């Protein structure tokens, strides 16, 4: 295991110490490093709280900041935070307008967020929940509620954050976020495993010339393991799954996210995007917004995912809204 760390046990907390030392815009609540919150809450605004396991930077905490999220409960590597930590974050970010819980569809996270929501209710804080379930590979059409949340949650963060920043009420923020959720699809492909520090060895093995289409960001099995193909063919296979269950029409607009899983260079992400852009062009679909880079990683896993949000007139301006977090900045061009 070749990692810059001191001890596997200190991995998450020392990372957090580094983050707090680097970025005065964020701080922690309740004396717990893992209760990560904005230092600049906006009075009267709906709070957006996320959370989940560590090892996915900038997901999840990286999206806490201006016009985006307000807090994040930070779990161990690939582990849920506790409901108590979620509750502390909730209490800290609540500005009287209620709190939206927005996280990925994983059992541990669900139990703890649900629990935290009940605890918050006892403290008279209203919560709503939207769970990202964008990973097309993780279940079939009709069983979307079983799908994992992966990189596409970025679009949900952006829509929710913008809606809240416009001071919409909780139910509206939840409705809009849920619409973004329903219109987001992601397909991923992994080329190599990663190592959880406390485990110390790779989570799975994969042949020197193989790729796994649809693998999850914790190494969950995908749809098929095949020989690695030329980039354009890989994109064609991935996009075929997305096109199969969406109804993009000529003239429609989408937002695209090409996400690196960790070790894959940015150069390659642009090669993938080139093909996605050509496929959209062929269909008369405009890529109104695109982002490329590392958004939801699995530490040093090699691979990439493609997320597409089908925009509409309500979502587009929200996606366009500028954002400023320590890890992600969006400025109008």
């Amino acid at each position, binding site marked *: 295991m070749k990692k810059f760390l001191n001890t596997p046990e200190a991995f998450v907390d020392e990372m957090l110490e580094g983050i707090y030392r680097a970025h005065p815009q964020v701080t922690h609540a309740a004396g717990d490093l893992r209760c990560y919150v904005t230092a600049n809450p906006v009075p009267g605004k709906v709070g957006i709280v996320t959370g989940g396991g560590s090892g996915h930077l900038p997901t999840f905490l990286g999206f806490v900041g201006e016009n985006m999220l307000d807090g994040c409960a930070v779990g161990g590597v690939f582990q*849920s*935070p*506790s*409901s*108590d*930590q979620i*509750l502390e974050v909730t209490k800290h970010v609540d500005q009287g307008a209620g709190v939206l819980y927005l996280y990925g569809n994983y059992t*541990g996270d669900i*139990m*703890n967020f*649900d*629990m935290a929501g*009940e*605890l918050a209710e*006892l403290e008279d804080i209203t919560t709503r929940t939207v769970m990202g379930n964008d990973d097309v590979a993780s279940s079939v059409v009709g069983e979307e509620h079983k799908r994992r949340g992966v990189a596409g949650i970025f679009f949900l963060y952006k829509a929710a954050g913008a809606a809240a920043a416009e001071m919409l009420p909780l139910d509206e923020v939840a409705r809009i976020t849920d619409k973004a959720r329903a219109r987001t699809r992601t397909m991923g492909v992994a080329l190599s495993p990663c190592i959880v520090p406390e485990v110390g060895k790779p989570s799975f093995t994969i042949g020197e010339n193989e790729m796994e289409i649809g693998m999850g960001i914790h190494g969950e099995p995908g749809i098929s393991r095949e020989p690695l193909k030329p980039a354009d063919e890989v994109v064609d296979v991935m996009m075929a799954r997305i096109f199969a269950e969406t109804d993009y029409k000529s003239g429609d607009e989408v937002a695209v996210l090409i996400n690196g899983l960790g070790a894959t260079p940015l150069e390659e992400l642009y090669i993938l995007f080139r093909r996605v852009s050509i496929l959209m062009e062929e269909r008369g679909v405009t890529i109104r917004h695109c982002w490329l880079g590392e958004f939801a990683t699995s530490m040093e896993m090699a691979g990439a995912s493609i997320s597409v949000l089908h925009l509409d007139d309500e979502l587009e301006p929200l996606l366009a809204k500028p954002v400023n977090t320590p890890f992600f900045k969006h400025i109008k061009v």
Partner: protein
Amino acid sequence: MAMTAEQTRAFYPAWAERFAAEREALIALDGKVGDSDLGITMSKGFAAARDAVAALEEATIAGQMKAAGAALAKAAPSTMGTLMATGFLRGFKALESAGQFGTPEAATFWRAYAEGVAQRGKAQLGDKTVLDVLDPIAAALEASGSPLPQALDEAVTAAAAALEATKDMVAQHGKAAAFQEKSRGLPDAGGTVAVMLVEVMRDVAHRP
């Protein structure tokens, strides 16, 4: 023969004592088709619940449950920790205005507990989980015409039988689910915890 709020306080140190005593046994049990954390999380969680309830100046029966649930959630964010926390918090809500703890209140408590767990864990009866023991406990109390101590005797009997019945089931949730058929023949670890929970409640209710 219903218990007062002063008397129900005694549940919490008794649970803490029991789970401390069962720590190694539960580790071993969870180790067979799980990750061996159950003894650690239950002993830690119920010790925290005991302390939280002990710290309350004055508290209703429901208030004790609320404090215990919150303490469990904080101290033990594992699957069973979160499920047990949920159970206590649902008990709190269901009994919010209860002034005593008799057989009807016990039935209400366990039913709320079981429903909370089912909802939180999205588990069905027969999935080989703690729910398969909690539900029969609630049902026994709902059906009982006896005063609390005797009603709890009946609940313990039902729980033990229910736990035995989990041996024939195949785990559908959590880490044990990965073992599938290998889990057959073993009692469910979470169910074992439920039996202990109701046994301790019975013992305390029988105290003079």
